[in-house]
């Protein structure tokens, strides 16, 4: 009984060692390529995820490839556009191993380990991507950056690059330059995406562009200042016109209102028609007393009515009972008396 336990233990141990030697596990993100004495299996099928059996080394061995998406990019590549302008394009592609057997056959000479195969594949992919970027030559700079507000053809360029890498032909169905991409499927590689990560300008071109930008800004400054002044002036002019309209309308309404007062006052003015000259005389005197000059200098003779008293001679040669009254005043009094007499005559004639 004791020996039986030992035997079972030994058998288990032996089974573990043997199973380790004759089985292998492929992860869900891997595919395995089984080789017999270095030769890949003839059925052309890679081993999928799960537990698999093989003859122990050196009869059979397995190379496992990671089939998840990987990233490859090119550094700055100068390209010429259709309008003969130079631009510098940096691009990347995403790829994966989709045919492990073909991949193994193409890259197994790079080394024994899968990592060495991947490294070699990346080199080829980078070269292929660089070559596919020559599709830039089918587009003008204005196609890629439409100044007029159109649709950029950058997506189309990326499509062309991808088509060149995956199908060996352009997106529009034409042949790609140099037939790039023709061999990638044969290498067991699937390019799932190609994209442009940077577009730059050569140093000299960037200098010209920056100078143009500066000039453009100078022009904008002048335009903005001019437009601002014009708009400001328009606002002021409009307001002044509106104010003028309002003011003139208000003046008109004010005159209309004042006219009502004039109409009401008319009978009183008419009542003064019995002696218009006297009415005007009174009004003139009222005006004289109401004048408020800011500054006035009067040069008057001493004979001025009322001021003749300033002349010492005015008090001499006076007869008894005579007053020093100026002749002008006498004359004025005479005129008034004459007018009054005429008026009285008219009144009496009227009667």
């Amino acid at each position, binding site marked *: 009984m004791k020996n039986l336990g030992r035997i079972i233990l030994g058998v288990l141990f032996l089974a573990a060692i043997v199973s380790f030697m004759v089985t292998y596990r492929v992860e*869900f993100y891997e595919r395995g390529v089984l080789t017999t004495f270095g030769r890949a299996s003839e059925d052309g099928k890679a081993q999928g995820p799960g537990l698999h059996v093989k003859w122990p080394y050196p009869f059979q061995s397995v190379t496992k490839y990671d089939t998840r998406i990987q990233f490859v990019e090119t550094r700055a590549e100068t390209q010429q556009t259709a309008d003969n302008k130079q631009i510098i394009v940096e691009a990347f592609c995403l790829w994966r191993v989709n045919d492990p057997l073909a991949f193994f056959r193409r890259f197994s000479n790079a080394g024994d380990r899968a990592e060495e195969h991947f490294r070699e594949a990346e080199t080829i992919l980078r070269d292929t991507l660089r070559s596919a970027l020559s599709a830039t030559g089918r587009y003008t700079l204005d196609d890629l950056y439409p100044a007029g507000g159109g649709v950029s053809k950058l997506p189309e360029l990326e499509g062309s690059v991808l088509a060149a890498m995956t199908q060996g032909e352009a997106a529009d169905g034409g042949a790609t330059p140099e037939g790039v991409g023709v061999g990638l499927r044969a290498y067991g590689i699937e390019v799932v995406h190609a994209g442009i990560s940077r577009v730059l300008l050569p140093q000299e071109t960037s200098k010209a562009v920056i100078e143009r930008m500066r000039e453009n800004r100078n022009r904008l400054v002048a335009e903005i200042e001019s437009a601002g002044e014009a708009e400001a002036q328009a606002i002021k002019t409009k307001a002044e016109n509106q*104010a003028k309209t309002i003011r003139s309308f208000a003046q008109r309404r004010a005159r209309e209102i004042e006219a009502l007062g004039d109409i009401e006052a008319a009978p009183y003015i008419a009542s003064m028609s019995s002696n218009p000259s006297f009415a005007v005389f009174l009004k003139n005197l009222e005006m004289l007393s109401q004048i408020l000059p800011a500054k006035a*200098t009067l040069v008057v003779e*001493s004979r001025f009515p009322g001021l003749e008293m300033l002349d010492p001679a005015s008090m001499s040669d006076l007869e008894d009972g005579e007053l020093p009254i100026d002749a002008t005043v006498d004359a004025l009094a005479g005129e008034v008396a004459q007018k009054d007499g005429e008026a009285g005559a008219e009144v009496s004639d009227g009667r």
Partner: protein
Amino acid sequence: MGDEPMMPLPEEEQGVGGRAASVVLRTGEEGQSPDALLDPAHQSLADALRVTLRFVQLGMVALGVLFLFSGATTVREGESGLRLMFGEIVGDDLEPGFHFSAPYPIGDLIKIETGTRRINEDEAYWPFLTEREKGRKIEELSGGADLDPRNDGALITADGNLVHTQWRIIYRRQPELARQFAENIHPDHEENIVRGAARHGIVRAVSEVTIDELLKETGGGVGSVASRARVIAQDMLDDIRSGIVLEDLVLSQKMPPLFARERFNAVQSAESNAQKAIETARQAASRTLSEAAGGVYEDLRREILNYEEAVAVHAAAQEQGDPAQIEEARRQMDAVLARIDALMESDRAGGEVARLMFEARAYREEEPNRRLADARRFEAMLAQYEANPSVTVQTAWADAWSTFAGRDMVEIIFQPIGAGEIEMLINRDPAIRKRQEEAMKAREVEEAEARRRARQEKAEFKTTTDLIESEG
């Protein structure tokens, strides 16, 4: 000890309560053969081996147990789990908690972090800066007249200009698509793939906008460059079934080439100045209109336009000769005019309109009274005049003239009688001038005070409607 076998000790020689001694020294008693002496040694060695074997067996059992339970693990919050059996996925989207799995290499349980991650895209589209320059503000940086494509990064806009930008890429692996991520994305390439997708989106999105649109962009709302770039990048990540979601693509910095920045600032200054000029003009316009009509200018202007339209309608109706239409047009005119009068005489009215209306109303009220007073005076003076014309005229004239000549501002120079033609050099007496100016100022103060009192009296009878409105 020679070749003599060790013999087991008699029972009486064994310690009580303890195990048998592993080695017993020969005592040299007569009658014991060498084989008998070796048996205890063998026995002791066998015992030792048995004990060791037991330890080894126990250790193996413990290791076996540990091996069986080695697949057990905890999936934490912010993680998603996948259960494998011989490398194949047999369970996905394992929720946080404790999970069992067959031990490796039979089974496995892999955990995928689904928390937010961030990539700073600070150099791809930014001019080359030394370590010292990186610590400075943008305003303090200076650049050459060109860009070296080997070192300086930039983007080209739709209008063919160059612009520098910095971005923050914020993403995470979607928990519900953890299996998709695990199956499709090589973890060593994950960051490059996300960065590539973002750059792909950025280059495309910026190629669709002008430099001014990009520089004026604020935030990452719908329709923004950042939003558009994020959508393009996300489409790419979805196309390759990455299981990654770009939570945000933030345009953190943007500026024109350093050499042109000063000119761009000049544009901003010009825009600012233009806005300032426009704002000043608006203020002046508001002041002009307020001076014209106070707070009612907008309503008044509209009603004046209405009135002009009503007048035109009235004129047209008169041309047609339809009495009904004429009457209707007249009613319209009167209605508009009533509204205009109400506006011009409202409390909100001010400026020249208010003054004109106030003076017109005053004139309307005062003129009849004034004329009435004139008429009364005329009648009274006329009676005096008829009784004594000379005295009445001279007295009235002398009163008026003395009133005029007695004012502070009137300076009188007497010309002696008989002086004939005189020539005067007038050099105004500073003292007189000073007195005159003082008198003038005093009068202005009095007038201003009178106006203030008049306004105050007027205000006392006003009803403050805004308070009523706010309370209501």
